[in-house]
């Protein structure tokens, strides 16, 4: 294909693509994101392809492997356009029925649509499913509409029109003004105003300037950037070119984390296609503007998400942060002015140019505009990616979109902002989601991780878990982070294992202060957040662990014991047989007793005990009642009363 030489030619080409497509042709979109592929989407795609061929429908039905629409909990997800019928947890065996019923007879396969677990109400269309209904999907909505590997698909939904508009109808200053009006803040963590970063790099002295996409998404459980890179790589490329044009850069880098092979692949394909079409490279669309993109694969370090560490790594040096100032905008990659933004930030640029900054800013709170993608995970019914307007309450995300807590348990806290975010308790669920709002509550926006915890989660153990993660991910350059976190981790481990001492909380507070105030980069400065926020909202749990050696959530293994209530035990032998360490003594009609010396607290007996007996108990902070005398252990069957 010849390179497209002008904006008019781009529009002509777009019309040509659209003219070949009939919007009424049924299109089966199957999520081919990493989540659905893991649950068998590849087999589903293959089944659809062969079934359609078999039935001779190839000419009249389209099939697409698309990006992730977000509802990973119920994958593989299949959406059939134009009717937008949404089928969940589809398996290859369902395929013939879908073709027969939906494609041929325009009817719905009822058993595959979303059924509300409470009301039993069925939602046929994707947008009617409660998980989607309460979202505002401005960015991720395109994922399911396009084949992630087809530039024509991206063009068919208006792709690269923002680039064409920026290059031909707007001056650099006008693009910047639009981004300024949108009040878009960086989606990677710190929430720095994007226009200011761009302006800083634009005005910095130097002929060579760089733009970088930070795709080193390292937060455990977070995968919004992956979904965008895999599902709609062109939107990121388009945003990056617009940024480069505004800043005056001719070379861009995408730093993708090692663990995202599919994202790397799709991104590579997209870059090649854009080059072939004249949307990248020399003289883009005949505008005279040159820009090229190189992809760099990270080597698996969390700290490389920090911008100065990322730049070091890009240069081939160890990924260690550098002190700021000087900021990368002035002295970045190879000491040249460099602008780094996160994947989601770049993906927000094309719609801002197309629809205007004011449109973007019409959503949100005072300080946080537009939408934000969160990865909703943990003890929540609907796991997945959710895109919501800034200003939505946490409660709406957890209950309306997330469908509440799994298994009817009680909500305890939601952890936002990744490992160095904080835990927000139930009485703050009305909190509006926004950069400043979350920071005020002792947490942060971060890049958009959201981990929901239920009543069985021990907050001290959660704090230990995240500090452990951060200790292992510290680059080791500065003392407050490397040594401070190491000591915090030791103390927290001691507390959760029953070796907590008076003064531990104060010691942790001193270490937290030192890390916050004296660390070199944001990793160390924010690392104590999991401790600080859990102490702020759940101090009584710390005290129970330290003073009473009691874990209120009955979760810390070293602080709990399993005990069989002799009043309830029916001597059914089930737990006895399940116990992997032969710690349960008993026989038929002989009440079971756990030998505390042998018990390893694995919890198998609790799981095994039939709900109708409910005899196995977890206890913490108090001694296990002594075993009942041998002579009372025989169960005498009660004579049937009349």
């Amino acid at each position, binding site marked *: 294909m010849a390179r497209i030489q002008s904006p008019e030619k781009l529009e002509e080409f777009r019309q040509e693509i659209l003219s070949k497509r009939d919007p009424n042709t049924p299109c089966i979109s199957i999520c081919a994101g990493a989540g659905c592929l893991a649950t068998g989407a590849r087999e589903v795609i293959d089944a659809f392809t062969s079934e359609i061929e078999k039935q001779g429908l190839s000419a009249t039905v389209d099939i697409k492997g698309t990006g992730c629409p977000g509802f990973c909990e119920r994958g593989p997800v299949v959406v059939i356009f134009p009717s937008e019928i949404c089928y969940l947890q589809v398996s290859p065996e369902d395929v013939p029925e879908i073709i027969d019923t939906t494609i041929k007879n325009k009817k719905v396969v009822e058993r595959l649509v979303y059924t509300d677990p409470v009301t039993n109400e069925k939602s046929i269309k994707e947008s009617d499913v409660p998980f989607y209904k309460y979202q505002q999907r401005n960015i991720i909505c395109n994922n399911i509409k396009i084949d992630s590997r087809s530039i024509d698909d991206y063009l068919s939904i208006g792709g690269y029109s923002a680039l064409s508009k920026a290059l031909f109808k707007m001056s650099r200053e006008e693009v910047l003004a639009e981004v300024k009006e949108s009040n878009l803040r960086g989606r990677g963590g710190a929430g720095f105003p994007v226009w200011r970063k761009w302006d800083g790099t634009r005005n910095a002295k130097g002929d060579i300037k760089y733009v970088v996409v930070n795709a080193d998404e390292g937060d455990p459980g977070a995968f919004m950037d992956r979904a965008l890179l895999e599902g709609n790589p062109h939107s990121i490329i388009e945003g990056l070119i617009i940024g480069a044009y505004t800043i005056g850069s001719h070379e861009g880098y995408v730093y993708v984390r090692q663990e995202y092979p599919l994202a790397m692949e799709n991104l590579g394909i997209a870059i090649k296609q854009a080059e072939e079409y004249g949307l990248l490279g020399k003289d883009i669309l005949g505008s005279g503007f040159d820009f090229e993109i190189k992809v760099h694969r990270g080597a698996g370090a969390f700290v490389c998400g920090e911008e100065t560490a990322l730049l070091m790594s890009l240069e081939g040096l160890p990924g260690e942060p550098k*002190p700021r100032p000087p900021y990368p905008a002035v002295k970045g990659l190879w000491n040249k002015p460099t602008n780094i933004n996160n994947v989601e930030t770049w993906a927000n640029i094309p719609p801002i140019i197309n629809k205007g900054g004011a449109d973007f800013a019409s959503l949100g709170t005072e300080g946080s505009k537009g939408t934000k993608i969160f990865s909703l995970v943990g003890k929540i019914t609907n796991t997945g990616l959710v895109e919501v307007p800034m200003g939505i309450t946490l409660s709406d995300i957890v209950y309306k979109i997330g469908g509440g807590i799994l298994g009817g348990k009680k909500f305890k806290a939601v952890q936002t902002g990744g490992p160095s975010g904080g835990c927000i308790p139930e009485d703050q669920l009305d909190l509006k989601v926004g950069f400043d709002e979350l920071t005020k509550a002792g947490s942060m926006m971060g890049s958009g991780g959201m981990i929901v915890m239920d009543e069985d989660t021990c907050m001290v153990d959660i704090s230990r878990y995240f500090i452990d993660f951060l200790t292992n991910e510290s680059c*080791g350059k500065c003392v*407050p982070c490397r*040594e401070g976190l190491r000591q915090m981790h*030791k103390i927290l481990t001691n507390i959760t294992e029953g070796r907590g001492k008076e003064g531990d909380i104060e010691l942790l507070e*001193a270490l937290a202060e030192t890390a916050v105030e004296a660390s070199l980069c944001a990793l160390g400065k924010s690392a104590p957040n999991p401790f600080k926020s859990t102490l702020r909202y759940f101090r009584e749990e710390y005290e129970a662990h330290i003073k009473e050696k009691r874990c209120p959530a009955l979760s810390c293994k070293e602080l709990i014991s399993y005990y069989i209530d002799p009043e309830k035990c029916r001597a059914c032998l089930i737990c006895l047989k399940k116990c992997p360490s032969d710690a349960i003594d008993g026989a038929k009609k002989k009440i079971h007793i756990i030998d505390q010396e042998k018990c390893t607290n694995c919890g198998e007996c609790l799981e095994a005990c039939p709900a109708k007996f409910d005899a196995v108990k977890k206890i913490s902070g108090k001694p296990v009642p002594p075993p009942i005398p041998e002579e009372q252990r025989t169960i005498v069957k009660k004579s049937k009363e009349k």
Partner: protein
Amino acid sequence: MSEMLLQIDGKEVRAKEGITVLQAAQSAGIYIPTLCHHEKLEPFGGCRICIVEAETNGFKRLVVSCVYPVENNLIIKTRSEKVDRIRKTLIELMMAHAPDSPELQKLAEVYNADRDRFDKDSSFCIHCGLCVRYCTEVVKKNAIGFIDRGINKEICFVPSVASKECNDCKQCFPLCPTSYLQAAFVLTESLAFPKDSSKPSSKE
């Protein structure tokens, strides 16, 4: 390069643009404690002991003076209750590795640091990086480097280079604030030097 005017501990100090707060203080004869700093080396900012209080337009925060560039009208306090408290914790954290380091002991006395506040960790290196950076930046031999990351980070001689260069140099030895560097060298020498070069005198 223009000249900046700042205030350190109440004293007016003139400094060239681009130098650090630590350099400005030292040129004015004002003492700020340091561990990983060396005048011949690029600022590193690893030990954080030179942390000071900085004020601009009424906004106060802590900055690390060996890497923070001077600014006009910056007001620096080299000591405050908070600065001292943080330095104390930093010293204590390093003493968990090297409780008998004379340099740390001297600092501990000034800041009332308790060498036993934290659990000991018997690796004596405090990762100031003086040896590594001196070898790279001044001697330009790269005979020693950091390996691994985070809490597992260690200094490590590169046997193939060290066996040729170190016996006649050893310029890094006096820089080490603990006794670990020499121990690491002896260990590397005995374990990993090629046989013929491990003799004390290696004049070739």
